[in-house]
């Protein structure tokens, strides 16, 4: 949480026109700063636009209202400086595990030997040794997401964007993935924006949690999480953890109720 802000959202808004209907304001006046090496969770009810905010930072969706700066420069399109992990893995199904992970390294123009070496390093890191030549269709959901994480980390992005990365996994796999992500973060600290609707997940992983309101999405409150270094799931049994969960749950509850009412 030290150092200058690496990512700056300044008065960011987003609106769109659905195929049938009137213009919808999805995001309104979002201002948020994420420091170098900070793990920021973006927590909010479904439909609050938290993924859209991540897509704007990723450069996938064109920014029309406000400004987003990365290292002082405005975002213009996707790039390997901001690695992305999606909920649905978004792997290339025609490529093996190794070929998926090598794809970004090929685009970087690394020498072949270095591509192989680095791909193997990240395959080992996410515990997929022995599955190098498997296709995604032969892997379980948890393994697929590990491939996606390894593929993203292999290009060594300065910033990691994760869009509900563990939302499609079962509860046990999700807990294992939490530990693996924390281990990766200990080894290779990255500025991270992590979108989730899971309060416990946000408290467990993040340095700070930004809570968003129901549509139009705004930052309702930013809560710093002072639980120290996460060394294992024991911290989830501590009273401080329960307090954070309750505080954030109360913040998010009213918004979730509004979101449900609004969608009716």
């Amino acid at each position, binding site marked *: 949480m030290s150092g200058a802000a690496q990512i700056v959202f300044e008065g960011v808004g987003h609106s769109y026109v659905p195929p049938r209907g009137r213009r919808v304001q999805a995001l309104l006046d979002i201002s948020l700063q994420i420091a170098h090496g900070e793990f920021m969770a973006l927590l909010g009810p479904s439909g609050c636009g938290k993924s859209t905010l991540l897509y704007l930072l990723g450069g996938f969706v064109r920014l029309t209202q406000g400004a987003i700066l990365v290292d002082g420069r405005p975002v213009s399109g996707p790039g390997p400086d901001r690695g992305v992990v999606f909920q649905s893995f978004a792997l290339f199904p025609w490529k093996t595990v190794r070929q998926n992970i090598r794809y970004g390294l090929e685009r970087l123009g690394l020498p072949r030997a270095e591509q192989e070496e680095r791909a193997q390093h990240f395959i080992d890191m996410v515990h997929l040794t022995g599955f190098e030549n498997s*296709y995604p269709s*032969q892997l379980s959901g948890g393994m697929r997401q590990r491939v996606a994480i390894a593929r993203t980390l292999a290009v060594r992005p300065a910033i990691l964007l994760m869009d509900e990365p563990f939302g499609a996994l079962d509860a046990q796999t999700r807990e294992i993935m939490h530990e693996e992500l924390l281990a990766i973060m200990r080894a290779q600290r990255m500025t991270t924006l992590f979108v989730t609707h899971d309060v416990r997940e946000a408290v467990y992983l993040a340095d700070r949690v930004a809570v968003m309101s129901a549509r139009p999405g705004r930052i309702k409150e930013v809560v710093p999480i002072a639980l120290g270094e996460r060394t294992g799931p024991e911290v989830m049994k501590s009273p401080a953890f329960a307090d954070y969960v309750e505080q954030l749950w109360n913040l998010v509850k009213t918004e979730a109720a509004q979101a449900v009412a609004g969608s009716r």
Partner: protein
Amino acid sequence: MARLILNPLRETGSILAVVLAWYWASATHLVTDFLLPTPLSVIQRIGADAMSGDLPAALERTIGAALAGFAIAGVVGTALGIAMARVRAVRWFFDPLISIGFPMPKIAFLPIFLLWLGPTIAAEITIVAFTVLFPVATAAEAGAEGIETVMLWSARSLGAREGQMLWQIVLPAITPQLLTGLQIALPIALITAIVAEMLTGSDGVGGAMLAAMRFADSPGVFAGIIEIAVLGYGLVKMMEWLRAALLRWHSETAAW
């Protein structure tokens, strides 16, 4: 051991039954030789045509026209389908045309191509390509429509440039649907080539059948039927083999 004999028998039993019925009907002179020549005389005829060089020449012409038209439609149809899925103006222009053209019997355009190109193999190739373009373009469009947005985004964020997306991401991603379209298109290409030959009386298997009919040469007509059946079966098997080879990654072929 019994399986080695019984399995092929089960799969080809109906074909065997038809051939036996054919043999029985012709051998007992239930119908005249003219209406139904014996299987043996048809086989002999195919053998004689093969020896004389007539059959290889006819096959070459028919396969040539079918595959040339198929290849042209494969390339053009794939490009058109992807463009329809990705470029709004292209979709606006071609979508209604494809919708109208798809159920239409494209062979009706043969007289136009004959007017333009004369009774040449070029006219046959053109009518084949025109006919087969529809299923190929439709399959490519459906495939490109179905590509997950986040997969395209992933590729972009991993450093793929706009120009690399088509070859590295879009084409491999649509291969399953595209191959389905091509598998539908290939027999249609063969059918169209043979019908065109029959209508124009040109060389090739279809033309040879037409000539045999004019000379009341019934073994010649039946020989053409057998040749077309074998040829079509061979081409379909080839496409199946190609699909299995290209889609080793796909869950339909994955060995669990």
